[in-house]
């Protein structure tokens, strides 16, 4: 296995929160994804040296930034880590150019100027170099913060929710720019977000954090397609988590019962008959058959509509199946075509490929 | 330890002596051509300052106990101890009250609501006032009316500004404030001796001795008398 560029494994105990992340990343775009309060910002702050873990290590390119056993705890000044906090924290009384130059005090004058010019040009900020941060737009502020962090040629770049203060319309554009920068600098970039869409759009590696612990760290597609635990599954949008009982685990498809219904599940491993299995189904991967369809063969469920919740251009429908709930998402036109109303019974259908086996129950 | 200085005599003097000593200094300077400087403060402050190395040549106190303490500690020269004047305690009433106070017993009269005296804990005139009340047998009636001034001057000020109806203060203060006053019988309080002594470490013992001598001179004694002090025991 090739050595990762950056590894962290530490524990940080706070009065009512315990942070214990463990992950490694290479020179890639890694996204730390989790719910609000999961410990994302705190993790970044620990990596930057702004809070001190109680134990463990943080290693960058083979050097320890922190190691409780060896008694190493480099101050933020000496970590060679670029940090862009959530609201950029630009120095409000200094010009854009001075902000960028702030970390370059130890360079000779000419070199410092050259470096600043280069970065301002790269970030398309030349015209604004004399303005104060309050006088430029949100996207320009973000680019300034990025330029400031990159000026010192860090070996790792940390960014906390960099798109929160940027227009939706601009985000796609800024994301591309960020991906390009990551490739140019060829350093690990760890970016924090609580937006699934953003995680999906950016991540090469996706690191999922929940209640202070890393619950899965893998390629983006791995995490989205094969969540390891129900928590990850839910975070990835698989809101339907079912407990099923294996009936036949020997064939190419696994057969299992969920209450009165039999489900065929695409699964390459094998499972003992009678064992319990956790599976996840995305609400958009459940189809609703038109009124009057039959509901007998496998992967067909009879369900009653309990609630209809319009969400943006979609409808999220809550169905009861026996006494359990299934969430189904349909587009608005499809919903109109189905002519559904609460209390009605319908047949739901799920493809075996849409039922994902979740290996580790929480 | 005071380093030798070709400077004027520096005299630590009780604040209550301020107006009197300022007058004496002028006469003395005219006579001898030697300048003197006073550092006025409360007797308690001055004693602490001397203990901590204040460069005073002479300590002139309204409280003989403080001088004796410092003599005992070796800071003042016992041989130079001079009781140069004696304080007189008087009874004063607020000017606009229009009462004629005739004796200390009058203070017990309910018409008198409050009585200012200097703090008996550290001011000699306060101590004398307390003795007076006790010996006159009015302490029970007067005690609840007492207001302690920070100094005997403060007590006088309280009467002068009409904030207390009466007070037991120094005659010198009453005179300087133009307050009509009633002298109290001497047996009611122990003598308020004003004592001076020369600092053991002074570098100017000759000048200092000259000044003490001047304090006993008829000229100085005349000033004391005029200001409301009684001539010292010599």
């Amino acid at each position, binding site marked *: 296995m090739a050595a990762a560029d950056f590894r962290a494994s530490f524990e940080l105990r706070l009065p009512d929160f315990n942070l214990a992340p463990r992950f490694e990343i290479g020179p890639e775009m890694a996204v730390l994804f989790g719910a609000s309060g999961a410990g994302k910002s705190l993790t970044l*702050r620990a990596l*930057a*040296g*702004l809070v001190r873990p109680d134990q463990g290590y943080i290693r960058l390119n083979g050097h320890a930034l922190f190691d409780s056993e060896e008694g190493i705890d480099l*101050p*933020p*000044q*000496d*970590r060679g*880590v*670029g*940090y*862009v*906090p*959530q*609201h950029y*924290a630009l*120095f*409000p*009384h200094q010009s854009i150019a001075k902000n960028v130059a*702030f*970390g370059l*005090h*130890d360079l000779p004058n000419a070199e410092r100027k050259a470096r600043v010019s280069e970065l301002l040009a790269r970030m398309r900020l030349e015209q604004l170099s004399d303005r*104060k941060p*309050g006088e430029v737009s949100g996207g320009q502020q973000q680019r300034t913060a990025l330029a*400031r*962090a990159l*000026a*010192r040629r860090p070996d790792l770049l940390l960014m906390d929710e960099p798109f929160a203060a940027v227009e939706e319309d601009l985000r796609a554009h800024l994301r591309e720019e960020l991906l390009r920068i990551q490739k140019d600098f060829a350093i690990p970039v760890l970016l924090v977000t609580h937006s699934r869409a953003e995680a999906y759009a950016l991540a090469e590696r996706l690191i999922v954090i929940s209640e202070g612990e890393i619950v899965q760290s893998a390629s983006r597609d791995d995490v989205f397609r094969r969540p390891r635990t129900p928590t990850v599954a839910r975070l990835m949008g698989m809101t339907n988590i079912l407990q099923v009982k294996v009936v036949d685990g020997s064939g190419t498809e696994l057969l299992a019962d969920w209450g009165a219904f039999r489900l065929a599940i695409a699964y390459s491993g094998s499972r003992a008959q009678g064992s319990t299995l956790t599976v996840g189904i995305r609400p958009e991967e459940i189809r609703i058959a038109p009124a009057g369809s039959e509901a007998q063969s496998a992967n067909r469920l009879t369900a009653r509509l309990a609630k209809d919740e319009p969400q943006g251009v979609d409808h999220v429908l809550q169905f009861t199946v026996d006494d359990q709930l299934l969430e189904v998402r349909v587009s608005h036109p499809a919903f109109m075509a189905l002519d559904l109303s609460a209390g009605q019974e319908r047949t739901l259908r799920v493809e075996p490929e849409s039922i994902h086996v979740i290996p580790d129950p929480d | *330890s005071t380093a030798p200085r070709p400077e004027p005599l*520096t005299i*630590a003097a009780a*604040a*209550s002596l*301020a*107006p009197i000593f*300022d007058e004496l200094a002028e006469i003395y300077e005219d006579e001898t051509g030697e300048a003197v*400087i*006073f*550092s*006025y*403060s409360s007797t308690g*402050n001055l004693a*602490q*300052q001397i*203990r*901590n*190395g*204040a*460069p005073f040549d002479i300590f002139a106190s309204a409280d003989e106990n403080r001088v004796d303490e410092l003599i005992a500690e070796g800071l003042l020269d016992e041989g130079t101890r001079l009781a140069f004047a004696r304080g007189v305690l008087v009874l004063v009433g607020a000017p606009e009250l229009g009462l004629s106070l005739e004796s200390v017993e009058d203070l017990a009269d309910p018409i008198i609501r409050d009585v200012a005296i200097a703090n008996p804990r550290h001011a000699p005139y306060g101590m004398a006032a307390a003795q007076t009340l006790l010996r006159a047998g009015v302490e029970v009636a007067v005690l609840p009316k007492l207001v302690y001034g920070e*100094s005997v*001057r403060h007590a006088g000020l309280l009467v002068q500004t009409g904030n207390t109806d009466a007070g037991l203060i120094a005659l010198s*203060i009453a005179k*300087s*404030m133009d307050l009509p006053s009633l002298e109290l019988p001497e047996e009611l309080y122990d003598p308020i001796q004003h004592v001076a002594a020369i600092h053991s470490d002074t570098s100017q013992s000759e000048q200092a001795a000259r000044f003490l001598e001047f304090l006993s001179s008829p000229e100085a004694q005349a000033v004391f008398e005029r200001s409301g002090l009684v001539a010292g025991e010599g």
Partner: protein
Amino acid sequence: MVSPLVLSLRVAGLATLFAVVFGIALAALLARRRSMAANITDAAVTLPLVLPPTVLGYYLLVLLGAQSPLGAWLESIGIDLVFTWQGAVVAATIVALPLVVGSTRAAIEAVDPDLRDVARTLGRSNTAIFLIILLPLAWRGLLAGGMLAFARALGEFGATLMIAGNIPGRTQTLPIAIYDSVQAGDLASANRQALLLTVVAVVLLVGIRYLGSALAGRNARGRG
């Protein structure tokens, strides 16, 4: 012979200078700290405000006087603080210090803590961060603290009387001269001197405010 006014201005000026310098340093050390040591330092700095100046002066006298080891050592290296105007500077500095620390600390803590954090990841020393980022953004609090300190130093009397004495021409500052006049029953002089002190204080405070806003405003304009 120095006039009480000149002496007062010299003492208050120097004391303000020292109080501002030490006060800024202390505010820097204390801002956003929650440690035991920080709390104790904070309390120690505030004490000169709580203790009556005379009492403070007494403790200073004992601490710096000829009989204390510190006083003896200072004297051996030629520094004589007791009964000198330099002693008055020490007293005024100590009483003015908490005013600088208090308001500067509050202003520094009002600065977004992310600014400091980011600055640290950019390799700058804590001192540089403090001087380049925090202080310029906290200038109003510093100015207010400096003004309070100057006013307090100019009016200082209790501790000064104790440690520096009341020696005309040497240690008699204007407030002490006023005390002296009051003691001598010369209320006319006292009023005159108090008026002088008042006018001087008002003129200088208004001056400091204008100068301070102008200077600080130039460095840290932003939108402030």
